[in-house]
Structures are given as C-alpha cells and as structure tokens.
C-alpha cells in the first residue's frame, strides 16, 4: 500500500472526475455533497471498465480460452487488491457480493443455517445499535423472527454517540452476534470499536462491522479491528455500483454454510447432493459482477495512489470547517457530534421548521446536491424527534469553497421560506 503523501492536491484530483466539471441544466456548476450516498468515479475507474469490456470480457473460472483467463486474472486481481487494502491475512477471506446489504444479509443467513456453536436460535440474542442503516437492522430482524432469537440494541446519547453505559446487560452470555456500524451514515459518528469487541469476545459472540462509510474514507485494517466479519460496498469508494465485499475470518468462512447455491460455489454436484468449493467461492454463486470487481480494483489503486491517510486528513479538515460554518447559520441544528473528533465527513442537520425536502430543493436550484430524508436510518430520526434531516457529505475531492457555497445556499433557503 502507498501511504506516503500527507496533503492532497485537490485541484488535480478533481480533474480526474469528469462529472465534477459538469454544468447543470439550470446553468449552475455541480456542487456534489452527497458522497455518503454514492461517490463519483474517476476516469481511471471508467477506463478500467471500458478496457475490460473492450478487450477482456469473458466469464470467469470457466473457459480455457485467452479471454476467460484474462477475465479471471483481472477478477482475482481485484480480490488481491481488496485483501491488501483492508490488510486481510488471506485473499481467500474476501468474498465479493453485490453491495454491503448483501454482505450483511449473507452473514445473517450463514448464522441462521449454521451448526453449533454459531447457530442462532431461540435461546440466542443478537445485538445491534440504534444508529444502524436499515441494511444492518432488517437482516437481523428477519433472523430473529425466523429463529425466535431476541434482538437487542445500544441506544444513543443526546450528542449522537453510542450509549455503552449498559454494555454488560446488552451483550450477555446469550449473545451470539454483535453487529454495528463503524461510521454512521446519518450522524457521522465514528464508533468505539475496541470497547464493543472486547465485551463481545468476553462472551464468545461474533462481531460484524458495517464499514460502508469507513472503507472509502480511512485506513481500514480488519486485523486491527479484531472483528469476525467486515462488510462494505464499492460504489461509495469510487467503484461502480453492483460490487460489495464481505471479509470474514478464514475458519469461520470454512465452517459456516453457504447461503446462495448455484454455479461457481460447488465442488461436485449429483442429483442427490453437492459438495462445495472452498471459501471465498463457496459464497459466490453464479456469474459474479466481474467488470464491477475490476472497477473496484481500479478504485483501490486510485485511493492507494492518493493515500488513505491523506484522504482522512483532508476530510477531517473539511468536516471541521463545515461544522464551524454550519453552526453560524441561524436555527441550524446538527444531528450528531458537533465537533470533528471521532467523526466522519457526513453531517446531518435540521434548519428550523423548514422540511429537508424543501431545503434540498432550493439547494438543488443552486447546483448543490445534498441528501434529504431519513437516510435509511429512520430509528435515528425517531430518537431525535425529527422527521428527516438534510445531509451534506464530503470526500477527497470536496473543497472549502463548496462548503461556502452550501452555507450561502442555506441562507438563501431561509430567506425563501422566511
């Protein structure tokens, strides 16, 4: 991995992203502040996709012809890139999925169908948190409903952090799995992994970490996290949509049962029964998203070239600046931590009684793209007694000038609905 540069040349980076120079139909230049929803793509990634389809397109792990071997090498090369990016002990621990939701559903289903000691049943407890994305709530609700297991969760403090004060009552000897988000997509909070992992390990529970908002923005080291599974998605980290990752510890991937059956995941098949390929292929039934994996490999190469530590430092500075400037806007309430400490670059807020839909619409008129709504984290909105929020989220190509434009835009919103 290349982690050398300490500062970003944001002007040069922006030139790599064709869409960032787009002029919108209303004549305004695009100010893209919806990076927590999805990132834009650099031409290096777009070129990798085009080259794959123009030169190498074939199905993987099947043919003996030249294109099949090239496609397989590119696809498996992307797996190597991911393994290195997250410091996985083995490339065989990297399972390609279609997105983080599928990764999390895959874990929940593995545990639902597992034998002891992993099996989740009516005597088990599952622990999540109140700040999860719906993709890390609903799969566990489904598992709980289907097995009779009890679903428990950590609540939130008023300042947008996990309330761990009752950790020993929430994670107990009955807990089979603890699944939580590393960086909240709505609050921006970076959660204290170590305290949760320590307690989970004490009671022998598996730990699943949703790193969807972490992998694009910071150094992600699955060994340092000491988790059992880590899920994330490609499209938030410069890659195409349709490619996600589940990292799992090798012995777990060997022991746990497959979920989707089909081509690619088998060893031998008879009409009576089948045996399965070793991980990761055991969990990759059917033709995988090959070009998308190749695109993820190219995205990782791009991110490594810039340096994840430099990206994290840049985003921290932008977040600090944005938090300070947002708090100058009258009636603006930040939902989540109000300082940049232990915080990612997604900032949710309300603006007086003006509904986020209306905020987003008036900002759009000025070329500013933000997300409005409950951000697939409705329990957070319920917790803070709000129907929805407006969210601005930054990435490696975001600038202070864009923050300034957002602030001007918000003043305009207030004037419009004042």
């Amino acid at each position, binding site marked *: 991995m290349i982690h050398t540069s300490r500062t970003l040349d944001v002007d040069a980076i922006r030139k790599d992203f064709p869409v960032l120079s787009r002029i919108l139909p*209303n004549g305004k230049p695009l100010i893209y502040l919806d990076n927590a929803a999805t990132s834009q793509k650099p031409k290096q990634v777009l070129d990798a996709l085009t080259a794959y389809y123009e030169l190498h397109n074939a199905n993987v792990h099947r043919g003996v012809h030249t294109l099949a071997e090239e496609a397989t090498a590119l696809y498996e090369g992307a797996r190597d890139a991911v393994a290195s990016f997250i410091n996985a002990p083995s490339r065989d621990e990297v399972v390609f999925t279609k997105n983080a939701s599928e990764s999390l559903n895959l874990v929940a289903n593995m545990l639902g169908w597992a034998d002891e000691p992993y099996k989740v049943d009516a005597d088990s407890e599952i622990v999540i948190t109140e700040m999860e994305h719906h993709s890390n709530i609903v799969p566990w609700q489904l598992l709980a409903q289907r097995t009779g297991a009890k679903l428990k969760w950590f609540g939130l403090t008023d300042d947008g952090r996990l309330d761990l004060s009752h950790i020993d009552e929430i994670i107990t000897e009955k807990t089979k799995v603890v699944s939580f988000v590393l960086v909240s997509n709505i609050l921006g909070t970076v959660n204290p992994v170590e305290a949760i992992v320590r307690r989970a390990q004490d009671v022998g529970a598996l730990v699943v970490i949703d790193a969807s908002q972490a992998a694009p923005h910071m150094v992600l080291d699955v060994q340092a996290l000491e988790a059992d599974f880590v899920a994330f998605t490609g499209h938030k980290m410069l890659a195409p949509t349709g490619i996600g990752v589940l990292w799992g510890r090798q012995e777990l991937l060997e022991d746990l049962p497959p979920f989707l059956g089909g081509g690619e995941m088998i060893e031998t098949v008879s009409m009576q029964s089948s045996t399965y390929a070793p991980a990761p292929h055991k969990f990759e039934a059917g033709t995988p998203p090959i070009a998308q994996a190749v695109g993820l490999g190219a995205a990782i190469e791009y991110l490594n070239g810039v340096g994840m530590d430099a990206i994290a430092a840049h985003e921290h500075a932008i977040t600090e600046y944005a938090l300070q400037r947002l708090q100058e806007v009258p009636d603006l309430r930040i939902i989540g931590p109000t300082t940049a400490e232990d915080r990612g670059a997604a900032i949710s807020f309300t603006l007086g009684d003006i*509904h*986020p*839909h*209306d905020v987003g*619409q*008036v900002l759009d*008129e000025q070329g500013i793209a933000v997300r*409005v*709504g*409950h951000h697939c984290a*409705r329990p957070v*909105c319920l917790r803070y007694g709000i*129907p*929805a929020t407006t969210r601005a989220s930054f990435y490696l190509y975001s600038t202070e000038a864009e923050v300034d434009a957002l602030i001007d835009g918000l003043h305009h919103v207030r004037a*419009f*609905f004042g």
Partner: protein
Amino acid sequence: MKLDSMYQDIILDHYKHPHGRGLRDGDAEVHHVNPTCGDEITLRVKLDGNVLTDVSYEGQGCSISQASASVLNDLLVGKELGEAQQIQEAFLELMQSKGQLEGDEEVLEDAIAFAGVSKYPARVKCALLSWMAWKDATAQALAGAPVKESA
C-alpha cells in the same frame, strides 16, 4: 426562475396557514407514509350519506405535502362523493402530467398551483400523499370501517 414554478405563492400560503388541519371525528382513519422521505399523514373522513362533511388530518412533511393536504381540505369538504372523486382524479392526472398539463381551474381551483410540481418526479409523491390517503380512507368509510373517536 424554475423554483418559483414549484413554490407558487398559493402553495407557500397553504403551507404556512394550513386549512382544516387537526384530527376531528371521522368514519375512517388511515395513516400513510412516503417511505423514501419519511413524510407522514394521518387522515380521517366524515361522511353524511353521500356528502363528505369533513376531512381532518395531522402530519409532518415538506411544504408540498402539507400544502396539498390543506388544498384537499378546501376542495373536497362539502362535496358529494362522486364530485370529490372526479376532483381527485383530475388532480392525479395533473400530477402525473410531467409538466404537460396546466389543470382546469374550474375543477381544481388552488390545486392548479401544483402543476409545476409535476415536473419534479421526486416531489410528485409528496403532492399526492394526502390525496391517496383520502382515497383510501373514503374506501374504508364506505366499506363500513370502525368509527374512531377523536384523539
């Protein structure tokens, strides 16, 4: 300016000073949500024979969804059901017109102000939230749904 085609003064007036807001007695109650944004409305209809005597509502949402509920209350209360349904259909047609229709002011009155909203696909659902809730509540009232006491 394009934005003004969506946020007509009539819409902003209804948003700031909603008509008929609050829950009152009804023959049926429904709760509808817009799952993409979290807008919610609880709506009751009161019928006297064939006449819609009240539409009462509570909810939270954007200016478009709130103003639309206010306009609905203005337009439909006091109407015979058949006429109310025609107005609802006319409003639905306007909102699905992608900016191609202006709306018949004789039928839709203030609701023609929403014509501009129909150009914004993400906001059409906001404008229709209360109207779909009304349609549902009326169907339930006609089917003899249990009467709810006012809160």
